[in-house]
């Protein structure tokens, strides 16, 4: 088999560097860019550096850097060395980053010099920032990367909130990712003239679409700086000024853009495609956005870190006036299969509630170092139980119903409530903590922490918030804290979450 026939993200880059050597591949947040030929060369330099530092196929390499051409080139370089990149939020707690890197035993970590407090005992720490392109160019290149490339090479490990209380790392191979990328490129079309925005951080699965579909097409990707990405006015200007043609983000961001982005004052005539995923887009906000952006097509995507986007649904234009419920998650793409099974892994009658299972090439190969991956083997297919409860309707596809476990989505971010609890009980004054999600019409979800303290001296809410901020990603910080003398338990001595939800949903009421 020739190298170009292997399904591999680096093969996509090499093909485009031959077809479109002088077209821009990636634009830095600062507006500078490199061509396909340059990006391909840069990744060869990185691969050479890694091999020289003892990185072998199958090894892991950490990445704790803001988005830049440098960090983007590093990703490809790591994969060209046939290693897996492990991206971690550079603005998050250093302790968490160190914990993740220790868990998957990275050999090298590329880190922004501002990330202080990162351990370097067990790996080679390489400080690099956005202005380090010339440093990459000084590395001895390994042209074409390490030989023997395989579709089964791990491309990356993405760490998500874990129900056991610590982050868990989903392992994705090149076969997993290219099956999704190929489907995305085919389904949503596009060519070398497209300009994709990349809003999601590299450590979220949504970024796979914006980072790798344009490479397949010979298009360009425009990296959005993290802070700018949270600011609707600046973000709206970025989308307009860069004349982006494709935009993909969570509904939370799109809602902010529609509400605060002053979209009517800017020119979005280039925009042809808007995708969203991560949570349901409530109809009023979606309708408003589609009025402000009349030209592009809109799609709701559904997926998870473990499978990436699997189901999709085009939003009709205009949305019928009588539409109240959010749109369904739709039908599976041609790259995967989807079935609804009950808790024991048996098919449910069509139209009944059950757990959505995904099979086929995009399904990940498990969590690093953990046995449990929620796989079900049936009909010769290995199915991943997503944990999402759905119903299948003939004309609409899959309808999202909810979850039966303790994973919640807030502002599109995936949060295991158990991980927040585990953080809180590490505070010296906290004896017990139970964390629940309450529905809220304005924010969608509010996270409430119920805390029982060790003695009468309870810590201030400010202190607990600061403590969470130090140990958890900011998106996991609870909205509210209440103090009880003890946490209510069921007859079998388990925390009675349902009682807490009933108590506080009524007591605090819905925010208007």
């Amino acid at each position, binding site marked *: 088999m020739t190298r170009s026939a292997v399904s591999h993200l680096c093969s996509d880059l090499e093909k485009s560097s031959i077809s479109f050597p002088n077209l821009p591949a990636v634009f830095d947040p600062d507006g500078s860019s490199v061509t396909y030929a340059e990006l391909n060369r840069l990744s060869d330099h990185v691969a050479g550096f890694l091999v020289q530092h003892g990185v072998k196929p199958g090894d892991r390499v950490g990445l704790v850097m803001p988005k830049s051409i440098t960090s983007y080139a590093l990703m490809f370089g790591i994969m060209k060395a046939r290693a897996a990149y492990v991206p971690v939020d550079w603005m998050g707690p250093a302790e968490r980053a160190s914990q993740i890197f220790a868990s998957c035993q990275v050999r090298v970590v590329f880190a922004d010099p501002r990330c202080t407090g990162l351990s370097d005992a067990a790996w080679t720490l390489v400080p690099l920032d956005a202005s380090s392109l010339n440093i990459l160019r000084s590395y001895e290149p390994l042209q074409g990367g390490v030989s023997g490339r395989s579709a089964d090479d791990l491309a990356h490990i993405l760490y998500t909130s874990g129900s056991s209380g610590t982050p868990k790392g989903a392992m994705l191979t090149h076969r997993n990712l290219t099956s999704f990328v190929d489907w995305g490129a085919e389904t949503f079309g596009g060519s070398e003239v497209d300009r994709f925005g990349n809003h999601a951080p590299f450590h979220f699965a949504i970024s796979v679409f914006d980072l790798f579909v344009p490479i397949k097409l010979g298009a360009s990707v425009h990296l959005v700086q993290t802070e700018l990405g949270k600011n609707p006015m600046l973000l709206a200007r970025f989308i307009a000024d860069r004349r982006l043609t494709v935009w993909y983000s969570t509904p939370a961001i799109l809602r902010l853009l529609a509400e605060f982005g002053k979209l009517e004052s800017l020119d979005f005539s280039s925009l042809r495609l808007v995708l969203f995923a991560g949570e349901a887009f409530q109809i009023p906000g979606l309708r408003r956005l589609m009025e402000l952006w009349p030209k592009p097509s809109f799609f709701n995507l559904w997926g998870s870190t473990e499978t990436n986007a699997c189901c999709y649904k085009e939003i009709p234009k205009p949305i019928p006036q009588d539409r109240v419920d959010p749109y369904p998650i739709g039908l599976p793409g041609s790259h995967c299969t989807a079935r609804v099974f009950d808790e024991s892994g048996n098919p449910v009658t069509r139209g009944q509630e059950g757990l959505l299972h995904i099979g086929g090439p995009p399904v990940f190969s498990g969590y690093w170092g953990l046995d449990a991956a929620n796989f079900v083997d049936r009909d010769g297919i290995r199915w991943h139980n997503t944990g999402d409860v759905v119903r299948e309707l003939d004309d609409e596809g899959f309808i999202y119903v909810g979850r039966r476990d303790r994973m919640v989505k807030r*502002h599109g971010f995936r949060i295991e409530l158990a991980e927040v609890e585990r953080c809180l009980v590490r505070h010296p004054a906290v004896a017990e903590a139970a964390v629940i999600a309450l529905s809220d019409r304005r924010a969608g979800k509010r996270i409430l922490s119920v805390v029982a303290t060790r003695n009468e001296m309870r810590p201030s809410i*400010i202190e607990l*918030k600061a403590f969470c901020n130090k140990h958890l990603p*900011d998106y996991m910080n609870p909205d509210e804290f209440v103090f009880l003398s003890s946490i209510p338990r069921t007859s079998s001595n388990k925390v009675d979450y349902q009682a807490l939800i009933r108590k506080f949903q009524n007591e605090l009421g819905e925010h208007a």
Partner: protein
Amino acid sequence: MGELKEEIRQFILANFLVGEDPANLKDDTPLLDGGILNSHATLMLVMFLEEKYGIQVEAHETSNDNFDSIDRIASFVQAKRA
């Protein structure tokens, strides 16, 4: 200035620190680094400041220098109104 700080304090307590003892929120309590103001909360606070004090906050101005404490927010608002 004292009244301005008090109004900002009350807004933060009512919206982002429900149930907190007001005495715990000092003029120099870190709001961004302390996890009290996330990006959504900052936007809400900006809307409140714009409406209440008739100022226009530019997108790049919601930085640590201007927003990390009640002291800094009050100075920022006062400079804007001057």
